[in-house]
């Protein structure tokens, strides 16, 4: 066997590379969904944490301690294996059967678990960003006749996001990495397919090597974005 053939035998055949690429695509869109939804929910969470109403504050604090202090894997197991037993049998059967244009139960419970976990962290970063906005902004806004909610939307949040951009992107990187835990509840993402490929081909280094490469590329892209944003921030004057 020539050196070229020997080298080729070590590579993964295209069908397995295809599996890994599909897994990577799943990781990307799942991470995107979690990022978008958790940011939207995180705004609500940060607002509740800084609300004037003590009831909202207490609820938000409870949410934070529940979802930040338990391991993500345990939360995913809860949503997949635990929570459905509370639903009526008919609902369970409907969720588990496949439907067009509706995600499978594995995907649904993985996304729910990941979103609820990420919201706690993203929300806290947003709250820290909001704290960085000077108090005078809120006072000036209310003096001008804005309600607190309007001040939040038009004045505080844009500035808070600029301040928290770097740590927020850090949390988004964590979200991408956390999707790998969803393989335990059946989400067919990159880690799941890497394990499948390894079980079929026994090329452990190649299977996990490619998976690592894809993760590194994804995180590096986020890092580049983060660097670009902080450079822009240094140039633009702060309000």
């Amino acid at each position, binding site marked *: 066997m020539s050196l070229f053939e020997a080298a080729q035998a070590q590579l993964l055949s295209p069908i397995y590379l295809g599996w890994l690429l599909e897994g990577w695509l799943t990781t990307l869109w799942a991470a995107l969904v979690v990022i978008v939804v958790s940011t939207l929910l995180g705004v609500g969470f940060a607002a509740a944490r800084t609300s004037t109403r003590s009831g909202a504050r207490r609820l938000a604090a409870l949410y934070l301690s529940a979802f930040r202090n338990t391991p993500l894997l345990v939360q995913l197991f809860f949503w*997949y*294996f635990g929570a*459905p*037993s509370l639903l009526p*049998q008919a609902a*369970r*059967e409907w969720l*588990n059967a*496949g439907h067009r244009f509706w995600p499978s*139960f*594995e995907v649904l419970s993985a996304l729910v678990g990941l979103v609820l976990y990420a919201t706690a962290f993203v929300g806290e970063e947003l709250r820290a960003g909001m704290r960085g906005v000077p108090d005078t902004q809120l006072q000036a806004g209310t003096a001008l006749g804005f309600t607190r909610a309007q001040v939040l939307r038009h004045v505080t949040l844009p500035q808070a996001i600029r301040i928290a951009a770097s740590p927020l992107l850090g949390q988004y990187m964590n979200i991408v990495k956390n999707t790998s835990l969803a393989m*335990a509840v*059946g989400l067919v993402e990159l880690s*799941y397919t890497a*394990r*499948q490929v*390894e*079980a*079929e081909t*026994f090329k*452990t280094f190649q299977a996990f090597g490619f998976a690592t490469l894809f993760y590194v590329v994804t995180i590096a892209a986020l890092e580049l974005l983060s660097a670009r944003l902080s450079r822009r921030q240094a140039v633009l004057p702060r309000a």
Partner: protein
Amino acid sequence: MKLRPLILCGIAAFASLASLQSAWADRLDDIRKAGVLRVAAFDGNPPFGYIDAASKKQVGHDIDLATEYAKSLGVRLELVPTNPANRIPLLTSGKADVVFASFTITDERAKVVDFTTPYFLVGQQFLAKKGVLADAEQIKDLRIGTEKGTTMEGNLRARYPQARVVLYDDSPFALAALRNGNVQAITNDGVKLTAQWNQLPDKANYEIPPITVSKEYLGAAVPKGETRLLESLNGWLVESERNGRALAIYNTWFGPNSSAPLPRLLKIGDARLASAN
């Protein structure tokens, strides 16, 4: 100046000789020298290997075999808990010397590890709620759960490509998914399924239909190329059949009075049938 290259050559020659020396000392010698046999075995797949609820220790059919082999070598046994997908990586990375974990012998796996003579014969079967699965024809329409890293997934994909297969990390997870309704049937070695079914509190609601997808021969595995270790293990397996220890261990876990009664399909050392695909 002429002396230095000579000394460097001498050091290089000595180093290569020394490494050659260690290359000849194989795994069996290492085991005897260290006094420890590291065996990878299941900790979540009764009755082959699982954690006993009362004693919190890892016990099972495979662990009994490993214990007696270690005793025959005169070394201590160290168990490395594993799940199906980690069996080969543990061997190839040197973290385990032998795998005794309900390991199906396949040609693909035999390219990467060395198998002993088969010590067990099982068939791949299904566990489902009563009435869900009566005929092999229905398999392609079902959602089926099984374990990552096993031959089960490959078999299903080869024969029933339209079936929706979800892989779980271990058989207890697959069973939980079945009971929750996430999957309509789980597939595994008939032995594991019987053991799992026997332990269900509501086992009257579940059944193992008489459908077998394939026959699987189980063997122990050693790292590729470790011929002396393989011969030692093979010799011990055949001897244990001859002096009745293999049968005694089988009856402890699968005999008529055990929790997973199953007629014995294979005596160690029987001529192996052509592997059923």
